[in-house]
């Protein structure tokens, strides 16, 4: 197990190194294919073991059910993003948007990004976690700017500035938390280990913890795309190359959310649930609400999806805010579902923009005729993303809503449903505009590459499967993770 954990961290690093020195394009593919498959496979084995045998700890590395869930997300998305990258980047080169010589750099950065994300999940220390989260920003910033055109640089600039300022706040919060820890336990104890913090949590100074949590929530919330700190998100997600957009939306946001959850566990123990609830529900509602106008009036396909991510992050936050085991379960399940669905949507959007040479929604028509598989899947994934059965997001969305009612907050539950139907209106409207009808240009049946099709179908199977049946071990893992969060304590 120990080896497994180290391997998961090391493989992407090695992959990055090998990619960077690789000049041969086929070699590049083989390296990345092997690296991503190996990492995903090992990660899933590790997750399965965790689910079966409980938390594992080796030095600074730690994995429990909560990080296991996130590791599932990150590893699956790494695999699909890599698979999709092959054909996407190839086409970028063919279409002349990109020099072939820059491909090694791309794959190296991609590997580093997945390394940083895995690091966020596996370290057992809030400080190191902060380091890893900041590292994800930096690794992805260059990927966002990868196209090096004006908009990409603009997006990257905003991304780095806003997120770094936000993350500075998170650092401030982390330091404050450390301060309380030192006050209680002296500096002898392992600093900022969240296991220790959670164990100490009942003795921490509530005032300071409160202050710390505010900074932490706002700081990591920036990274997780909570309104009103979400402003960078649509820019960055729309300008990055599509595989990266998928990864950013699917796993990076989830990782930031994971960090918030880790902090939340400690804070809840110290302060009781109410404090975190108010903040989380507030930010969650605001995020869902703020996404509505942008989704209702949107002309950029990738920005549409990005705002949908804001909405989903808001929903997850709401689930965490409601705080009952059921709601947290829903939120965690939602993290998983959203990651799979949204990443696939970004990939598909990438294919679509490459085919139509535009991101403008109103210039894209008749997808289902022009690109039958892509169009069909795009529509199905949109339907999945707005939370319609039989896809998983429906289950998690309704679980969160139901939890809200069950927790004695029917008004909140009703508002969630109402706001979500606003999102629904926008998403379905633009989806219908793009997918249906007769294509404007003469129909030339286009197909995506075989590997990317595999990526799409894999995502589709997961999201459809998650709506119908969750494997018992996975479900059990989710339940235990939810119990961790709402029960507080490890």
């Amino acid at each position: 197990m120990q080896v497994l954990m180290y391997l998961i961290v090391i493989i992407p690093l090695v992959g990055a190194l090998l990619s960077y020195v690789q000049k041969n394009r086929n070699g590049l593919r083989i390296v990345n294919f092997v690296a991503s498959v190996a990492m995903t496979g090992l990660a899933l084995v590790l997750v399965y073991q965790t689910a079966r045998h409980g938390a594992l700890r080796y030095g600074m590395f730690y994995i429990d059910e909560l990080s296991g869930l996130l590791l599932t997300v990150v590893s699956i998305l790494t695999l699909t993003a890599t698979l999709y990258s092959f054909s996407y980047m190839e086409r970028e080169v063919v279409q002349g948007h990109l020099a072939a010589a820059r491909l090694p750099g791309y794959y190296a950065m991609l590997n580093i990004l997945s390394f940083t994300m895995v690091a966020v999940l596996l370290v057992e220390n809030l400080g190191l976690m902060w380091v890893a989260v900041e590292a994800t920003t930096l690794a992805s910033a260059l990927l966002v700017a990868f196209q090096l055109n004006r908009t990409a640089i603009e997006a990257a600039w905003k991304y780095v500035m806003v997120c770094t300022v936000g993350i500075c706040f998170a650092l401030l919060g982390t330091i404050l938390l450390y301060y309380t820890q030192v006050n209680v336990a002296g500096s002898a104890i392992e600093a900022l280990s969240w296991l220790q913090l959670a164990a100490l949590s009942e003795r921490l100074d509530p005032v300071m913890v409160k202050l710390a949590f505010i900074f932490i929530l706002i700081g990591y919330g920036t990274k997780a795309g909570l309104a009103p700190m979400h402003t960078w998100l649509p820019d960055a997600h729309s300008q990055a190359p599509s595989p990266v957009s998928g990864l950013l939306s699917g796993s990076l946001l989830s990782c930031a959310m994971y960090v918030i959850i880790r902090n939340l566990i400690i804070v809840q123990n110290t302060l009781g649930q109410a404090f975190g609830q108010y903040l989380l529900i507030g930010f969650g509602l605001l995020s869902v609400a703020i996404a509505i106008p942008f989704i209702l009036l949107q002309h950029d396909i990738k920005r549409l999806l990005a705002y949908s991510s804001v909405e989903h992050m808001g929903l997850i936050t709401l689930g965490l805010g409601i705080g009952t085991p059921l709601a947290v379960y829903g939120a965690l399940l939602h993290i998983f579902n959203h990651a799979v669905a949204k990443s696939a949507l970004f990939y598909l959007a990438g294919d679509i923009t490459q085919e139509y040479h535009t991101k403008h929604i109103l210039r894209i028509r008749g997808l289902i005729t022009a690109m039958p598989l892509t169009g069909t899947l795009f529509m199905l994934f949109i339907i999945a993303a707005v939370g319609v059965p039989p896809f998983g997001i429906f289950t998690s969305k309704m679980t969160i809503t139901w939890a809200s009612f069950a927790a004695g907050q029917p008004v909140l539950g009703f508002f969630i449903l109402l706001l979500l139907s606003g999102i629904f209106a926008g998403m379905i409207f633009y989806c219908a505009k793009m997918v249906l009808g007769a294509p404007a240009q003469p129909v030339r049946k286009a197909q995506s590459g075989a590997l990317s099709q595999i990526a799409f179908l894999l995502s589709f199977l997961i999201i459809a499967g998650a709506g119908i049946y969750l494997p018992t071990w996975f479900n059990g893992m989710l339940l235990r993770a939810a119990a961790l969060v709402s029960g507080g304590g490890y």
Partner: protein
Amino acid sequence: MAVPLPAPVGSVTFAIDALSAIFILALGLVGAAACIYAVGYTTEYYRNRFRQLAGLFNAFLLSMLLVFSVSHAFAFLIAWELMAVVSFLLVIHDHHDAENVRAGYIYMLMTQLGTVFVATAFFLLAARAGSLDFGRMAALELDSRTAGLVFLASFIGFGTKAGMVPLHIWLPRAHPAAPSHVSALMSGIMIKTAIYGMARFYFDFLGTGPLWWGGIVLAVGVVSAVMGVLYALMENDLKRLLAYSSVENIGLILLGIGAGLVFAAGGKPGLAALAWTAALYHTVAHAVFKSLLFLGAGSVVFSTHTKNMEALGGLIKLMPYTAIVFLFGAAAIAALPPLSGFVSEWLTFQSLFLLPQALDGIKAKVAGAALVAVLGLTGALAAACFVKAFGIIFLAKPRSEHARYAEETPAVMWSAAGLLAGLCLVLGLFPQPLLAAISRVFAGKAGYDASVLQAGNWYTIAFRQADAGGALTPMGVFVLLIAGAVIAFAIFRFRGKPSIIGGETWTCGIVPDARMEYTGTGFSKPVRVAFRFILRPQRETLVREGGKYHGRKLSYHLSIRYIFNELYRPLNQSIIRVATKMKRIQTGSVQLYIGYLAAVTILVLVWNAWWLN
């Protein structure tokens, strides 16, 4: 039966009780006919996309079956949404027509809004019951405030799906857009899932409520019935006409339900059962004849490739079987004895007529009488509407090339519709088995007493309650009609074998032409004029100078204003306006973005400080 689902949904239970059984029966009858029909209908029309269509169609059937059979709120919502999305995909099946896509969109959106309320209703209840299982919800005693909220939420939610005015706006767009055998299912069964939901809530979950519940349902029912049939009568698109007629029939069902609620609230268990029986009987009857009509309309479209009634005519000779089955449907929906529509209409009349018994005072009398009068009005309008539909489509001479070269559909199509036509007659003549099935719904339900509705014998349906009663003998009516026809025949042959001489229709000496025939628009004109305060007809006459010898050419365009659609416009516009304003927060300025960040931090800190004290 219990099936495990991903927790925390827990295991999903399936239960089919008397209530579900009735709806499943309707689904089975209509579904079977639609399936048989589809064998003929889809091959010609959708050769390319046949597989998709067939798959979705079956998924649609399955989803409706699930809606009727699950007994778990979460599973119900899954089935409910599944039904919505599958039917949405069916509505947009022919997506090259932008109108269909728009119809599908509006449908999907309204359904989603409806689901918001349905889910709210379920969750409100389930939160009290502490379980999502129907059994636990039914066992719950609710306080009146929650019960009222649940009632309103479920009524709005299910009402959207049922297509009650003013939440009906999707229905006349979506039903015509789908392929006809799907329209048949949508109008026949899908909107009845909402009735099922209401019945589930009002029987099982909520129990007897206050009087205003029934009042609201009755009011909405009246408006739906009258507006639906008025719009249907104004319509010249065959399938839209049928769709609006569905709005009307939902109104009629709601009248039954409303009366049932009033009776239950007024402590008249027998009459409450009677009124609900009326609603449920009409549900089944409408399922049969509306599907039949949609299948008939499908056949017409299949042969003529147009839904515009003004372009049809004379099909009775070209498509004789389709014409006969359509006539059955039209007569049934116009509630003519001895067909199925009459039985439910009679039951509804009885329950409305006895409405004053549940209440005291003059107001109740007037209200009851007014409701009966409105029901009569609706019935007469429906008759006018279907005289128009059948007359303009099937009778006289073809009005266009479309109709002139129509051919009878394959036997599989008209015989499928024929099955339903037979059912109309069976349900009209032998209502007892279905009534017996319906009466089982009330077994053990507080506030309902089905024993009032005793089937006296195999040919009579009757009810008797303290100082009220009534009986109907459809079979007797049928026998009398046969006897009357025999007498008529005898009279006809009284002076020997008749001879029939051919002679053109008299048109003041000119050779008759299809263009002289009365049009659908013309046929509905008197009603349009009389009801102009609701319908707000507008006409545009364009005068163009014709050739030298022809004088002027007139083109005439008539439209009515849908006052309920106009309710939505300001809403829509204000949403867009607000959204446009809100979008300004994303200015693109990175400094401002960081400003937001700082501002929210300060706000939260201040809130925190304030909250501490």
